[in-house]
């Protein structure tokens, strides 16, 4: 009966989507545990140890706690915006996983304009954050929301430029083809222009995911905790999950763009290679988070427009030139 139900394309896509959702959330729970463990080990302490064997169930316990906790809507808040904001932040992050190729066969939808789609879907989250900042009618959240709007927009540009450089090399916007172009260990990171592009991309994504040294929107020491100060319970969980899902996606995309996606030694299946590589990148992001202090708003924007964007432009030109030169020589 199940097999017969699976023929119907709608049901299959639904199951597909449900499976993808489950994988993402499970991955995020593992990520949260990893973050707390890595933070602990870097700060010469143990991190979570009590809940479950060696603390594995800590993030599950957190999730259950957040779900059961009473989520308060502050009286002066603009209810409509307050309630809607978490969805505006959470949904785009999930939507973006649609085009991520775990391995050649495993992709929810092989979209030919995947790169463009990723960038477009990512910007919707900015609206969510500003809505949260404005909706809670709290001065700290307002500051946090406005800061993050400025930050996300200005770091969108270097990320786009970096992806553009990769697209030149792969001659296609589809992530699957980009990954295919790198099979057999010919990863794009070894191309000189794309090495710089990877550097620009990673710093841009650091800012996109609001992580130190760019975690201004939720700077604990200044704005208490920025735009999600007044959120609690399930709504705060959505912000929390969104941030970690975004971090995972940023490193997974970096793996697809620069580190050859599912291409790896024949031992493991493709998808596991991709997840393994992106976890290494996530570790680097965490490592950076627990070492560096936070930049100030004007320095943040100055760095984006005066340093990253020029480098991005140069990289795009350099990539285009090297592609044309390679094509010229080939013919």
């Amino acid at each position, binding site marked *: 009966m199940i097999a017969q139900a699976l023929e119907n394309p709608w049901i299959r896509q639904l199951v597909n989507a449900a499976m993808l959702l489950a994988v993402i959330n499970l991955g995020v729970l593992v990520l949260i545990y990893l973050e707390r463990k*890595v933070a*602990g*080990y*870097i*700060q*010469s*302490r*143990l991190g979570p*140890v009590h809940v479950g064997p060696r603390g594995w169930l800590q993030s599950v316990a957190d999730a259950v706690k957040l779900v059961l906790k009473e989520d308060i809507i502050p009286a002066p808040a603009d209810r409509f915006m307050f309630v809607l904001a978490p969805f505006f932040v959470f949904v785009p992050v999930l939507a973006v996983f649609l085009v991520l190729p775990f391995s050649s066969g495993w992709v929810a939808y092989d979209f030919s304009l995947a790169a463009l789609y990723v960038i477009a879907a990512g910007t919707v989250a900015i609206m969510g954050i500003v809505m949260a900042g404005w909706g809670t009618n709290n001065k700290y959240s307002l500051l946090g929301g406005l800061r993050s709007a400025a930050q996300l927009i200005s770091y969108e540009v270097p990320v786009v430029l970096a992806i553009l450089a990769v697209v030149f090399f792969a001659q296609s916007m589809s992530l699957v083809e980009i990954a295919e172009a790198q099979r057999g260990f010919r990863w794009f990171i070894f191309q000189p222009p794309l090495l710089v592009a990877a550097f620009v991309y990673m710093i841009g994504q650091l800012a996109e995911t609001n992580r130190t040294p760019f975690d201004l929107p939720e700077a604990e020491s200044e704005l208490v905790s920025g735009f999600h100060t007044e959120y609690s319970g399930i709504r705060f969980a959505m912000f929390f999950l969104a941030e970690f899902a975004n971090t995972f996606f940023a490193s997974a995309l970096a793996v697809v763009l620069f580190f050859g996606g599912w291409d790896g030694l024949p031992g493991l299946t493709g998808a596991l290679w991709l997840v393994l590589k992106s976890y290494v990148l996530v570790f680097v992001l965490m*490592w*950076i988070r*627990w*070492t*560096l202090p936070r930049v100030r708003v004007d320095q943040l924007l100055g760095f984006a427009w005066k*340093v990253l964007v020029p480098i991005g432009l140069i990289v795009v030109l350099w990539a285009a030139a090297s592609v044309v030169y390679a094509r010229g020589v080939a013919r």
Partner: protein
Amino acid sequence: MNPLRTLLGGLWRIFLGMGLTLKTFFRPKVTIRYPYERRPVSPRYRGMFYLKWNEEKQRLNCVGCTLCAQACPTDVISMNKVGKGTTAGVDEFVMDLGRCMFCNLCVEACPFDAIYMGDRYEFAVTEKEGSVLRIVDLAQGGPENARRNVETLMRLQAEAAEKGKPGESPKPQARPAEEGA
């Protein structure tokens, strides 16, 4: 300095910092997993009070001279003295820890080696009345020592009464600390 050099110099110093955090990542950790493991406490630790129990005389050293109560800046100590001279002692010793600063002035003021601060630091209570400690909580060796103390004092008083002579006032035993505040 040209911008490229500052950028690379800055990057290099960031990597140095990250090298340190990575090294600490692999270094042994300092966490003491309380309550399973405990941090050793120094012999002079100023924790929960106790009234010293004198084994041979089967009584508490305290003779109720209230020197500690006078030395206390926040009137924490109050007591009920029984008997006179060598048979003097206390049958009730109340410490209102809600006002105590753990400043050790009472221990220094006591000439009879009677009150000390031990090494117990877990004495949280759920309501304010719980922080008022009686002699049964303070006597070293638990409540039955408090009971035995009162019995010994009664016995001494009875003997002194039938011998008809009040004992002379108790001489402070030898005590390392000098005459206190």
